[in-house]
């Protein structure tokens, strides 16, 4: 009996060490990245940098235009992907009859979420620029393309949030004579909403950091002005970082690091909001 307990304690101890090592490795990488970017780039962050636009001379270049472009693209992405994704998730979980079709659609959505982002860029190029003739490099096309990419992520997160709503609540509503649609919108959606929003923010932060698909739809040009409309040529933060990183030898090293710091801060802030929502959702039930 004692020997058994000792062995169990030893195993517990080993697992603890292993776990700590795993945490240390991931946190260490993140800290290294953040630290080195801060050291290299913090000097480049000032009001002019945050408000300015891209320029040929490193000293005059700023990320204001790229920030604005990112917000426009992200806004459109979420404005399209969130309602469509939520409706799809609600329909699949609550209303769709169980059938071979439903299974097929579920499988396709899971696969879509795993498709590499550059493929979505190619799709955007063919569909929005080719077939529909929309302007290159515009936030409109960027938002449409990233919405295609983000939607399956929101559907999947939304479905698991919806599935976590206890069946007893659905039955309670059905038993007083609510229809399936009323059950869905009066009871399931409000209860699942924090989880859905968390998924949307995680999908949105992925979209915010995306570069490859945007390069494919033409967002790779030198844009010396902030976009004023959804169809104006624009650039976004990660693309700006990508473009500047190519010109390190022309004095853009500090600017690149500074832009990376800004992007990371934005991403952390979004994930922080997601964590807060998740926590609030858990406390309330």
């Amino acid at each position, binding site marked *: 009996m004692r020997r058994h307990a000792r062995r169990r304690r030893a195993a517990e101890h080993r697992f603890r060490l292993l776990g700590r090592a795993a945490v240390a490795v991931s946190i260490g990488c993140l800290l290294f990245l953040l630290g080195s970017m801060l050291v290299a780039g913090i000097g480049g962050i000032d009001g002019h940098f945050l408000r300015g636009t891209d320029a040929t001379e490193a000293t005059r270049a700023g990320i204001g235009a790229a920030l604005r472009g990112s917000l426009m693209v992200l806004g459109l992405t979420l404005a399209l992907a969130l309602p469509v994704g939520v409706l799809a998730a609600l329909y699949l979980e609550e209303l769709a009859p*169980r059938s071979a079709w439903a299974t097929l659609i579920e499988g396709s959505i899971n696969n879509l979420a795993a498709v590499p982002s550059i493929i979505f860029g190619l799709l955007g190029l063919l569909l929005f620029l080719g077939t529909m003739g929309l302007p290159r490099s515009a936030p409109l096309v960027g938002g449409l393309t990233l919405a295609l990419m983000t939607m399956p992520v929101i559907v999947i997160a939304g479905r698991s949030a919806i599935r976590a709503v*206890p069946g*007893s*609540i*659905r*039955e*309670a*509503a*059905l*038993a*007083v*004579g*609510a*229809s*399936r649609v*009323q059950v869905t919108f*009066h*009871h399931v959606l409000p*209860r699942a909403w924090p989880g859905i929003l968390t998924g949307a923010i995680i999908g949105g932060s992925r979209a915010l950091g995306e570069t490859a698909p945007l390069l494919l739809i033409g967002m790779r040009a030198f844009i010396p002005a902030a976009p004023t409309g959804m169809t104006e040529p624009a650039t976004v933060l990660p693309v700006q970082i990508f473009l500047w990183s190519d010109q390190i030898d022309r004095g853009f090293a500090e600017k690149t690091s500074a832009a990376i710091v800004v992007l990371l801060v934005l991403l952390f802030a979004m994930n922080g909001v997601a964590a807060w929502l998740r926590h609030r959702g858990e406390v*309330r*039930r």
Partner: protein
Amino acid sequence: MTAGTKMTVRDVSVWYGAKPALSNVSLDIEREEVIALIGPSGCGKSTLLRTLNRLNDSVAGARVQGLVTLDGEDVYAPATDPVALRARVGMVFQAPNPFPKTIRENVAYGLRIHGLARGRADLDAQVERALTRAGLWAEVRDRLGDPALSLSGGQQQRLCIARALAVEPEVILMDEPCSALDPIGTARIEELIGDLRGRYAICIVTHNMQQAARVSQRTAFFDAGRLIEYGATSELFTNPRETRTRDYITGRYG
């Protein structure tokens, strides 16, 4: 069908997938009576309740055969709207399941979706009436805006009863409504059932023989998906026809 019959069940069988849960059950639910369903765990009591208000429609693989009527109309006829049916046949579940909303909203919800209230004052009045009937009004009158989940288990169960009463159903199905309650809460609900008798046809599932004897006029004993015995409660408890019934009610079952 006699004049006093509210619901009839004729040769009803229910399956979950390939598994039979009820076989050839026939019984009547009278207008002014309480009928108790008793029997060992898994014998199909909840299944029968969920067949009466078609709640099993949303259970994948559940299949019903036979005839169920409400006021002589076929509950499973293609023309019957299950949503309208459930407004007439209310249900209280084994575990209290209030909506995670306010106390007031729990009771008001059914009134709202069925458009039963004319304006705010009428809604408030009906909420009060339902809570009063469920014996909860005195305890919650000052905290109607509090979350329902802040109530005790017994209060939650009475809230669920108020929620069911609010829409003025004609039949009330209760699935072991006292299983999560202490003796005081249980006594309250039994008293409530006594008050409600006559106004609603009531069908209650219980594992408590004394409770069945106290609250019901008729009792149905089930075993393994079959209706073994069915008759006046006084008769069934004092002079059961079947040995299985006698073994069960005297605790010698198994």
